[in-house]
């Protein structure tokens, strides 16, 4: 994958630095003052700059020749500055969420019980999301493809962020996370790797299967939803939030996947599209239990001081993914109001 085209001053400085100085040091020149970023959660320039810096820790870029760029201290400084602004915005959003920070001590006798109750409660309210209902009943084929294109930024890398957490936790929580990841990674069968199932769905619609074109067109809020997982997974202090995020993500996946599957059937989309969502109805019903009871409850049993972080991560997942969903729905609604050309 090549570096993406920048879309503003922040991403331009990050991309230019990586391109212009193949052998480092990679000092990003004075990035746009963070004060100019009014709302980082939907600011595509901000999120793209952060996404590029995170990507150095995943598969990297063909046109970044210096293998040391990943741990260039100056790039880490730039990343940390963006992360501070990002985390601050996420915490502000979470603080506006009703019941976003429940009084845990009222929810059970032990931290494990408290966290389990909080996670079950906050995800119980969610039925199929508005996005899933739209895809089920109303979406055109073009809407559906635009949804897949937007989600490709995550699904082509599905579950990779959470793998960074494995060495950061221990005991029963580690075992349960490994069990969940084993399933995400195909359960020993390369053809069942979830990333591959999604790529196959894209290919069946003659859509590209590499990440670059999807990053090039993704909304800021979509990049934010993916960056949120990296923020939590790549910072050990946020390991509790990473696992709370995973629990909320899995617990709000099965019912939407069932609706999206029905939408794919309604539109007569190719079988590989059905297969991806079909797999996730069953898999995520299992993963939800593993994530809430196996991982999060065991984690706070081991490290009770992480209870609030787990709940924060879950609330952040629902809030930021909700924001990304709203942006998509707005786009589809606006598209419907515009008379088709010709």
């Amino acid at each position, binding site marked *: 994958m090549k570096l993406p085209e920048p879309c503003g001053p922040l991403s331009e400085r990050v991309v230019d630095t990586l391109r212009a100085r193949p052998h480092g040091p990679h000092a990003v020149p004075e990035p746009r003052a963070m004060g100019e970023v009014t709302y980082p959660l939907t600011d595509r320039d901000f999120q793209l700059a952060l996404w590029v810096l995170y990507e150095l820790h995943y598969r990297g870029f063909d046109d970044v020749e210096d293998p040391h760029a990943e741990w260039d201290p100056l790039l880490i400084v730039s990343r940390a500055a963006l992360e501070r602004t990002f985390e601050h915005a996420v915490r502000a959003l979470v603080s506006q969420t009703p019941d976003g920070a429940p009084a845990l001590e009222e929810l059970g006798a032990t931290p494990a019980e408290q966290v389990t109750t909080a996670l079950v409660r906050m995800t119980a309210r969610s039925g199929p999301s508005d996005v899933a209902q739209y895809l089920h009943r109303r979406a055109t084929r073009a809407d559906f493809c635009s949804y897949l294109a937007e989600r490709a930024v995550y699904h082509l890398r599905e579950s990779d962020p959470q793998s960074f957490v494995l060495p950061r936790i221990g005991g029963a929580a580690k075992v349960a996370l490994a069990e969940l990841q084993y399933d995400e990674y195909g*359960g020993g069968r390369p053809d069942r790797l979830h990333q591959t199932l999604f790529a196959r769905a894209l290919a069946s619609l003659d859509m590209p299967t590499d990440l670059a074109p999807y990053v090039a067109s993704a909304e800021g809020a979509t990049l934010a939803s993916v960056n949120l997982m990296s923020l939590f997974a790549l910072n050990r202090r946020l390991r509790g939030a990473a696992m709370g995020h995973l629990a909320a993500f899995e617990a709000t996946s099965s019912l939407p996947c069932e609706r999206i599957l029905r939408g794919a059937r309604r539109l007569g989309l190719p079988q590989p599209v059905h297969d991806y969502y079909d797999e996730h109805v069953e898999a995520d019903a299992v993963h939800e*239990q593993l994530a809430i009871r196996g991982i999060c409850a065991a984690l706070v049993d081991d490290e009770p001081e992480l209870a609030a972080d787990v709940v924060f991560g879950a609330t952040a997942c629902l809030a930021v993914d909700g924001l990304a969903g709203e942006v998509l729905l707005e786009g589809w609604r606006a598209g419907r109001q515009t008379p088709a050309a010709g």
Partner: protein
Amino acid sequence: MSSRRVTVTECPGGPLLVRGADEVVGLDGTVAPVERAVVALCRCGRSDRLPWCDDSHRDRRRKKKPAS
């Protein structure tokens, strides 16, 4: 011979998690092969994918198997 352990874990208000099973035999004798390391078995009867859980126990608006 292997001494593989088969375990069943209850999830309050949710499914049974089963590890290590090879197949699940339904009431009508239908055999559902187990194709993942851990499977979730429906306990509420609302699933559209019996014997597997599909999270329908969460969907409060949903009573029993609506037309799709």
